[in-house]
């Protein structure tokens, strides 16, 4: 299959995305892909569209990260945040996009040592995971999560390991 961009070289980078039932396919050769990335400033391309969608919304407050000095424009053009605080400063630009960029906006995986051992943290995480399973009509998984939630409610948190439900 030929590259979508140059129509000359063999495409070796294939991306297929499905969002809200709409499927988009991109087939690029490595050279055109590199060109595209450098033109869009790294992963920034993903976020420059955001600029159009959400531009101006957080101009009044949080246009500059108070901790590392990254500006909203800088983030939108590069796609990179400068510190953990940026996720709060640019939340209105990042969060609406997470459902499309990612498989949701709630972390369901591993947690660092301390947090993992608190049942309250696991309970909240599983509740979010349960909602996702029900939304996806994955009832088998939902039943497993329910069982674990029940165990946590009964104070029996020792049977299953974190993140393995």
């Amino acid at each position, binding site marked *: 299959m030929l590259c979508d961009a140059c129509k000359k070289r063999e495409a*070796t980078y294939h991306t297929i995305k499905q969002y809200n039932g709409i499927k988009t396919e991109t087939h690029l050769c490595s050279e055109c892909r590199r060109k595209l990335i450098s033109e869009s400033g790294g992963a920034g391309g993903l976020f420059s569209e955001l600029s159009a969608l959400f531009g101006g919304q957080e101009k009044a407050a949080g246009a500059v990260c108070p901790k590392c000095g990254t500006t909203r424009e800088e983030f939108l053009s590069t796609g990179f945040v400068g510190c953990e605080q940026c996720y709060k400063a640019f939340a209105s630009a990042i969060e609406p996009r997470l459902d499309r960029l990612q498989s949701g906006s709630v972390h369901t995986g591993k947690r660092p040592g301390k947090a993992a051992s608190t049942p309250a943290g696991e309970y909240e995480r599983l509740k979010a995971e349960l909602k996702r399973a029900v939304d996806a009509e994955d009832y088998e998984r939902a039943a497993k999560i329910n069982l674990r939630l029940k165990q946590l409610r009964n104070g029996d948190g020792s049977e299953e390991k974190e993140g393995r439900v």
Partner: protein
Amino acid sequence: MNESMNASVASTRIRLARNVKGMPFPRKMNASQAREISRKVYETLGSGYKLYDIKRLGETEAGALVEKHLISKELLACGCGSVAVSDDETISVMLNEEDHIREQVILAGLKPDEAYTLADALDDRIGEKVEFAFDGRLGYLTACPTNLGTGMRASVMLFLPALTITDALASAAGQLGMYNITLRGVYGEGSDALGFMYQVSNQRTLGVTEREILELVRAAVKHILDAEERARDFLMATRGPEVKDEIMRAYGVAANAYKLSGDELIKYLSFIKLGAYYGLLDVKRIAKLDELETAMLPYGLVSSSDVPLADADERDVYRAAYVRETLKGLVSPCALK
């Protein structure tokens, strides 16, 4: 899937992206903060690891680390980057690249669970002493929002000659959309599809658990290898004589040439692997062919010999001699029909 398809999985890689709580991310930090992170993380690893300061590495040594996939090319451009590599070279921890910490495990063959178990243990070990930037809802906080959540990328390197030759790769890849999986050529630098090596990896990191990512990648690998197996049958049924001829010529040249460039070697070795699959060539150990390929890439070759980096001709002569010698005990032709 036929057992012999297992030889088409070169390696499995797990990468976890982490940052240190309270520190600006690498793009925004200064040299002393970077040094502090390198020191702190390296101390958690204990013995059995070697720390390389990228700035102090020579071109050959740095290039060899890239060829072995122990570091990314991007790390070379990071002024404050360093890497800790385990003695057996299965684990590497890149420091101050895009994120403060990139924990990586590479194992030969299809071993997602084993690789993740090692990465998970490494992560726990570092996490005991280093507090990670973490948010209850967004998970591990990374420099790019595309790595949020688990910060995990699981990749499997696959050898897909028949899907490439029959031009069926795109349609096989097209069906992967539902898996949130990306498929890309490994040797992409101006010589697309060279070596027929591709990397299958997960796209999304947030809203999925590590186990779900491993399952997704495993399912995608199975799907692609099933398609590759069908394509190999089709290829032999429709273009048998041409394919056999190409394989035997590749073996003939690789086993007898006086000069071999790196690209030529990658091409010939890939046809030798295909020859082993079709039973045209008897290869004692397929993994040895992959090792030979990595060892004979320019920087690997220079670092293990006296050949100067600048002398491409001498490199090609050395490579051909080394390959002739290695193939002697490793590959032999079967009786042709």
